[in-house]
């Protein structure tokens, strides 16, 4: 049962959180487009269903595999995704980015569907490989006139949150019905990945 202090703290926290959304602009910097860069980055991964499904599948797979994979996969992915985006920034082309992203949805979906439990290193390498394609795609669509760093931070945070969504959903793995549902969801991701692949070749 909550104490009065806890209730007051919760109310104050909620109000301060609301206040943060009503904040006035601060004119300490004259940089334009900084906040817009972050929001653009935040939106980018959730604007494409291919990214969304693959990211959630990473979380689901991590949750199915349990510790330490549930830590390693969401840590590996952003690092290698950043590497992919950096390659793009440096002008290093990666052929077949769209195909790679579609393949990631197919394979990660299949891994969730079959509850595949490879060795941790194999899972990490697989995740790292696909992360490069996702990162390259994010890097190629960096907006002009906005803060590059904040755009990057935005898409990294959004990707991490999608992993978090996947891991949270994956918590149902403790129940038998939940395991079935996760396998079904994995199948759905794989089918969607096949559609993305078809579109990439079309």
């Amino acid at each position: 049962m909550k104490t009065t202090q806890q209730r007051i703290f919760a109310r104050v926290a909620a109000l301060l959180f609301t206040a943060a959304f009503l904040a006035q602009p601060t004119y300490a910097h004259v940089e334009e487009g900084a906040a817009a860069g972050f929001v653009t980055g935040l939106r980018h991964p959730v604007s494409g269903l291919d990214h969304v499904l693959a990211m959630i599948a990473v979380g689901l797979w991590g949750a199915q595999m349990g510790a330490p994979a549930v830590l390693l996969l969401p840590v590996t992915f952003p690092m290698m995704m950043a590497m992919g985006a950096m390659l793009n920034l440096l002008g290093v082309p990666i052929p077949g980015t769209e195909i790679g992203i579609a393949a990631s949805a197919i394979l990660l979906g299949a891994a969730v569907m079959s509850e595949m439990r490879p060795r941790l290193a194999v899972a990490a390498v697989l995740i790292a490989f696909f992360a490069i394609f996702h990162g390259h795609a994010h890097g190629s669509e960096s907006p002009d006139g906005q803060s590059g760093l904040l755009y990057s931070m935005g898409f990294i945070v959004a990707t991490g949150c999608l992993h978090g969504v996947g891991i949270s959903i994956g918590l149902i793995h403790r129940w038998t019905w939940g395991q079935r549902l996760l396998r079904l969801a994995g199948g759905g991701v794989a089918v969607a990945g096949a559609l993305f692949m078809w579109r990439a070749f079309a």
Partner: protein
Amino acid sequence: MSRATTIKSRSPQVLLALCLLILCPLRADAHLNSTGLGPFYDGMAHFALSPEDMVTALALALLAGLRGAAYGRRAMFVLPAAWLLSGFIGLAAAPSGGRALTAISLLLSGALVAADARMSLRAITALSALLGFLHGYLNGAAMGQPGVGAVALLGLVSAVFVLVTLAAAFVARLRRPLTRIAVRVVGSWIAASGLLMLGWSMRGG
């Protein structure tokens, strides 16, 4: 009902009223320039609006917090002290880029958090001093004006102190493995941001 109980029962309403006041901010024309506090708040705002500085300080706080309260206390004092000292040195220097170095510091500190590096107290102290010196010098050099810049630097360092104190204290009391994993995941995001900042600096964008 006793007087003490009445006051206690009204405290949520008073808090609510105070918070409503916070929701309606107006421009403060309190002549901060004449009181000398304007640059102080500019310095704080500068820190809050410079992700490369703020996130590096946050990463160090997370790293120190993961190791424990003693490490947090060390980072809490060493980082702002080094930041302030080198900031004063930087005020006399010409503005320099140093974007790649900042990116490397972001990458390094984030990677150490992600790896939950078991560093000694001496290593944390050295890292805090190193990061403080680097970021402080670059901030000082960017501010340029010795008089106003020094006050701004004080504001900036106060913000560093508050952030490191709160973040390290928050992390130091985390005991559940899942919450510590969440901190390490945030570290990987910071490292990834550092890597991308390095990419942006190499690209020149």
